[in-house]
């Protein structure tokens, strides 16, 4: 049985700032459980001799020299912003008064 239940989904939804109805939570818990089970089969296939990997391509040390490249102007940077003020992104206040 998958180790993901309705409470886990509700928790994740909150962390991800996604509003979900009770029905959606139920449905998603079921769907995620199937996905988690499917992924599990990968660990069954990999034996002890297969090291864990975070990347599918066996590459390492892909570096960039410390040389300045291109930048945006402030206008370009802000061109997709919903709101801006004096060259800066304007966002809603984040915390209420104590």
């Amino acid at each position, binding site marked *: 049985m998958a180790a993901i239940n309705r409470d886990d989904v509700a*928790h994740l939804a909150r*962390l991800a*700032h996604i509003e979900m109805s009770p029905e959606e939570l139920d449905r998603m818990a079921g769907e995620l459980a199937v996905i988690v089970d499917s992924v599990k089969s990968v660990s069954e296939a990999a034996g002890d001799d297969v090291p864990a990997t*975070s*990347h599918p*391509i066996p*590459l*390492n*040390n*892909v*570096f*960039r*020299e*410390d*040389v*300045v*490249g*291109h*930048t*945006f*102007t*402030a206008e370009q*940077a*802000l061109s997709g912003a919903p709101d801006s*003020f*004096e*060259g*800066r*992104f*304007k*966002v*809603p*206040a*984040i*915390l*209420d*008064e*104590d």
Partner: protein
Amino acid sequence: MSTDAILSFEEAMEKYDPVLGFEVHVELNTNTKMFSSAPNVFGDEPNTNVNEVDLGMPGVLPVVNKTAVESSIKIGLALNCKIAESCRFARKNYFYPDTPKNFQTSQYDEPIAYDGYLDIELSDGSVFRVEIERAHMEEDAGKLTHMGGATGRIQGADYSLVDYNRAGVPLVEIVTKPIEGAGSRAPELAKAYVAAVREIVKNLGVSDARMERGNVRCDANVSLRPHGRERFGIRSETKNVNSLRAVEHAVRYEIQRHAAVLESGEPVIQETRHWHEDTRTTTSGRAKSDADDYRYFPEPDLVPVLASREWVEELRATLPEPPAARRKRLQADWGYSDLEFRDVVNAGVMDSIEETIAAGASASVARKWWMGEIVGRAKTADVDPSELGVTPQTIVELNTLVEGGKINNKMASQVLDGVLAGEGAPAEIVEKRGLAVVSDDGPLLEAIDAALAAQPDVAEKIRGGKLQAIGAIVGGVMKATRGQADAGRVKELILERLGVEG
């Protein structure tokens, strides 16, 4: 905003044993950012040092800055850490407007450096070892400015403005193991530890290390436990502690606050505290909650960093002399006493003295000028002595003028004022201000003869070998020449005049 109760520090220490922990963020001074080629420059127009990577545009790919990795390895080595043969980046997921990607690229289970230590020298000369848990690579976040509201603080702001110039600036976060056994020296140790880290990264040349610009930032963890108990108490984490003085004050304040909470029988709440320099207190941020579930996972857009032992040794070979070792060497070279040297270090003029000596002054002359003339002026002007505007060359020139008998010490001090007032080089100022000592022996001899004639008994004493009596005659001559005579030369001439061997 409510004011928290606090206990006196002494009482807190009688009843409780503090345990500390620090997370120090060091901004690297690379030319470009950690994962993008946008410039890493402080103080530019907002949102001009950004490109698509820093703004988290869809479909962009980060590329690791090689110099930043090398700087991180150097920091690890300087902190006596092991350098991981292989490490990787991870995403730390959270929603906050300071990071447009909705995650910070950091390292989680595989930091580049781990298991180090730093020996911290306290003011009485004793050494306290702080164990380093890890030092990992990550990126800085953008800068938020909270607008409106009563305080300019985050609480009660109407809206916030975001500048992403800082987003993506390479950071190394240095995390200590829990620091036990500091006792009542905890506040001093806190300050000394952060000072040592700052000194090390500055000495390595990998960071500008200017705390007022946020190049070195400290989060201070404090918890208390009753004496004799092994289990740690519940800790608070004070953020925004961005000067050495503030680190000391914040640790002291949190110890006092925790003690008052524990004395009242309540549990300490595990939470973030905000430091306020104006009131020298902390206020509650937010309690730790499941919002701190960052769901770290390996960054799929970046491949692992392998630090071959050859590469690490190459970097180790480039490390400069550690600051503590350098201090020992300089003190020995200069022949200063422990007290003299400590004063020099505390006054912040060790580097200036070193440069002055390199420019040609003797160790005692360099100390005389920096400690005797410049530190006081800097204090009055409220700047660092090194930023007052006195160059090593100025001091060498002043000293040459004094030793050559052109001016005396009193005049030299006036010349220094002239240099600071922008009147030119010392020799020019001597000329312009008409400060040169009377070096023509003619007028001096006249004045000497007059002084000797005015005090025949003193002249007789000197002839009889009582050389200390000469001061009275020198004084007469200096008065007659309105201080413009070289006292050393005057002495010589008096002795000559009286036919006495000096």
